[in-house]
Each structure stands twice: as structure tokens, then as C-alpha cells.
């Protein structure tokens, strides 16, 4: 992270978009937005606009990659060329390949993978607009799309970042805070089990700051979890109405 001389916190202790240190960005969730996918979710978190879709359980090609005792979870995190300031080539970057891996490993602990041996589940995440902490918003969306697809899960996975900007530990970093701030700690959490399924960090933090950041991120996760459950409920209510 580069240290530029931009002021991220004003005299009242508020951030550039007026948030307090422990405040989430506005979040909008829509479940089941896509008709072709087996499950899908669209999330806006601040200016992040992220779509996740799930296909499966379905057959795996080539077949020799199927596993006899469990399903294979595959995940692709991908950014639209127009999602960032400088046009991004649609070919997957090294960053996208790493994030596809950590997102997969963040949602997999929630899935009963042994329920569908010899099958595959594909999670596709498309970042339509990026504004920081996209891996967290992607995990939140992916786990909703999995639930929408009826995949049996231990719990929803929800993710949120915390970080350090100008000596303050803050929740839910947006792009400029990620770039100019001094540390970023994305965390994915399963609230019912109280366990962490994604943890990364870059920047510089003391151990005290690190613990504070992780705990703050978990608090953020719990708040988003409530919204996740509401969105799922809203989807199922409306589906039920349609089916009657």
C-alpha cells in the first residue's frame, strides 16, 4: 500500500463518504436475479456491484476429475472490463486467479460436499463495478447464490473487511481507503459456527490492531448476515406467492 498524503478522515472523525469508523456502506441485496442460473444473487455494497451465479450440482467434464466421495466446487471471480478506472483486459489476471481460489476456500467449509458425490458445483462471480473489498462482497453474494440454488449448507458465509487508515481501525474499506490506507484485513465468517473461513491481510498492523480489526470485521459480518437472511426470505416469500 502506498502512503499518499490524502486525508481519509475529517476533523469529526468521519470518513470520505461520511461514515463512522465502524459503519458499513449501504447494502442492497437481490436473490435470484438471473433466470438461467440454478441460483443467483446481486449485491451492491457502496459502489461495488457484484453478481454471483451457481450452476449445479451437475456433471463434470472431463469425467476423471470427478471425486467418488464428494462434489467438486469450482469458483471463478472475474471483473468486467468496465468495472475499474483503467479498462481491465477480460483475460483472467493473476489477482483474479488467486481470488478465485480464496473465495472458493471461503465458501467451501459451509457446503455439505459429501451430499453430491461425482458432481460439480460452479460458482461464477462477476464484478460489474469495483470499489474496494470486492472479495468480501463476492463471498457474501456467492453464499447467497449457493443457498438460492438449494445447495445444502451448514450456514451462510458472510464476509467483510476491516483495516487501518490514519491510525484508526475502520470497517468495510472502500477503494480509496484500501489504496491509501495502511492495512486491509478481509474476513469471511460463518456466524452460527463462529468460525473464520477467509483471512488475509496486507499492510502493517501490531498484534493489538490486528485483533481489533478481525473483531470489527466479524461484527460487520454479523450485520450483513441479517441482511443476507432477509434477502433470502424475501426471495422465497415472493417465489411462494408466484407458485400459489
Amino acid at each position, binding site marked *: 500500500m502506498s502512503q499518499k498524503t490524502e486525508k481519509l478522515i475529517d476533523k469529526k472523525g468521519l470518513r470520505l463518504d461520511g461514515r463512522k469508523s465502524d459503519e458499513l456502506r449501504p447494502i442492497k441485496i437481490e436473490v435470484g436475479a438471473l433466470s*438461467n442460473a440454478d441460483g443467483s444473487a446481486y449485491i451492491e455494497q457502496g459502489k461495488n456491484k457484484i453478481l454471483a451465479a451457481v450452476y449445479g450440482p451437475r456433471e463434470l467434464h472431463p469425467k476423471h476429475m470427478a471425486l467418488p466421495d464428494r462434489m467438486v466446487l469450482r469458483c*471463478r471471480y472475474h471483473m468486467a472490463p468496465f468495472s475499474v478506472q483503467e479498462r481491465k483486459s*477480460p483475460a483472467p489476471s493473476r489477482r483474479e486467479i488467486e481470488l478465485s481460489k480464496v473465495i472458493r476456500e471461503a465458501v467451501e467449509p459451509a457446503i455439505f460436499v459429501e451430499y453430491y458425490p461425482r458432481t460439480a458445483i460452479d460458482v461464477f462471480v462477476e464484478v460489474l463495478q469495483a470499489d474496494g473489498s470486492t472479495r468480501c462482497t463476492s463471498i457474501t453474494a456467492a453464499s447467497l447464490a449457493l443457498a438460492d440454488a438449494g445447495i445444502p449448507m451448514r450456514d451462510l458465509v458472510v464476509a467483510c473487511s476491516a483495516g487501518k487508515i490514519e491510525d484508526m481501525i475502520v470497517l468495510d474499506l472502500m477503494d480509496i481507503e484500501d489504496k491509501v490506507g495502511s492495512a486491509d484485513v478481509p474476513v469471511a465468517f460463518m456466524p452460527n459456527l463462529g468460525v473464520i473461513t477467509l483471512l488475509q491481510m496486507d499492510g502493517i498492523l501490531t498484534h493489538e490492531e490486528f485483533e481489533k480489526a478481525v473483531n470489527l470485521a466479524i461484527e460487520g459480518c454479523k450485520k450483513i448476515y441479517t441482511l443476507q437472511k432477509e434477502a433470502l426470505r424475501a426471495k422465497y416469500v415472493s417465489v411462494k406467492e408466484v407458485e400459489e
Partner: protein
Amino acid sequence: MSSIIVRVKQKQIAQLIAKGKRLDGRGLHDYREIKVEQGIIERAEGSARVLLGKTEVMAGVKIETGEPFPDTPNEGVLTVNAELVPLASPTFEPGPPDENSIELARVVDRGVRESKAISTEKLCITPGKKVFVIFVDIYVLNHDGNLIDASALAALAALLNTKMPNYEIEEGEIKIKPGYSALPVRKHPIAVTFAKINDKLVVDPWLEEEQIMDARLTITTDDDGNICAIQKGGSGYFTPKQVFEAAQIAKEKAEEIRKKLGWGKNGEKN
């Protein structure tokens, strides 16, 4: 759906079309509902989302600077790319563009380019050296048939929504100034796609119609009713009479769409 049910349904679709009807109640030359939303991606210089029934396509426009082509040193560059992202259909797979996404991008590109929709000569910064490069990225989010028309609409809607940065040339270097002006778009090419099923032409085929069509024909016309691009697809054929008939219908449908969306001289807005 089991493949038997699929085949029964396909037969039904084909038989209805022979009688001039369609399974979803549309007339043979009716479009599904068209919804256009512009300016949805703040990060992009221009953007739009188009719904054509359940088919959903997004387009984003990014503007960069680059070198002009050697044979058009005074003109900006237009680049159209299309991604059939795998969340849009169980048949789309991750990977480099295949023949379908390349054809889609090139058909949309030809409509915009050949109609001279964009005043590329106004996008020159330093002749032969530096021009604006307009990237139009088409992003298919849900595939329920007729991706070409939906993508052409999304691309045009995004271009109409595009803001160019103001700039000055200072000592050979480009300097961005505050404010924006609209990208100079002077034409509104509209692609109209036909599927040939049971020897009838239907407009705006949805996915299940595409699965049983013999061939596909896309005709793009400009505001003056002239034809600016055509693409036949699929492994069937058309009689010359069908082609000429389709060209007339395409002109009318394009005019209707332009009017409905308020684009061009007969448009209600813009």
C-alpha cells in the same frame, strides 16, 4: 426438463409458428418487452443495461488514448468486445472468446462502424500519433435468445450515455480539464434479427426458438432506413424473397424501436 418434454415443446413451437402464432403469445414480428437503463456503472465513461424479455446484456464504454490506424491517421479507434460470461447460461464456459462471442462482437461492431454512428474524426488528438480509443465491452448476463439485438441495443445505449473528458493540448501533452461533453453519436443503428422456423420468419427469437431455427438473419439499418450491416447465421438457408422481405421488416422494426427509445430524429427524446 427431460429431453422428451423438450422435444414435445419444440414441436409445439414450430407448429404454432406455421400457423402464424408463438408460444409466448407474440405475433411473428413482435419484439419482447425492451427495457433500457443507462449510466448504471459510474466507473465507466458510458454504460447501459438492456433487458429483452429475460435476455439481459450490459455494455460499458471506456475511453483511453492510443495510436490511430495507419490508414486513418485522423480518426479515433472503436473496439467492440463481447464476453459470454458463464453465469449467463449453462452452455457458456470460462475461457478465451469463442466463435460465438467473436461473431457477436463483430456484428455489433459492423453496425456501429458502417453506419458511421460515431464521429471518429472528432476523436483525433494529434493526427497520426494520438487519438481516443473507444472500448465498448458487451457483457451478456442472461441468455434467453437474440443476443445480437440485445447487445447492439446495449452498445448503442452505452455510447449515447458516454461522456468524453474535456482536454487541452499543452506542449504536445494532453491535459484533462474539468467537465465532460457527450460522445459525438450521429446515427442510431438498430439490429433486427430473424429466425427461420418452418419456413417462416420470426422476429426476436427467444432461446427455445433459436434451438429449433433453421437459420438466422440479422439486418441492421440506420436512421435513414438504409441497410448498414447484415449477418446470416446457422446451418440453413433463405430464399432471396425471404431476404428482401426481412430487409423491409427490419427497417420498420428498427424505426419502431428508435421511436420507442427516443433515439434519432423521430425519437421522442434525445
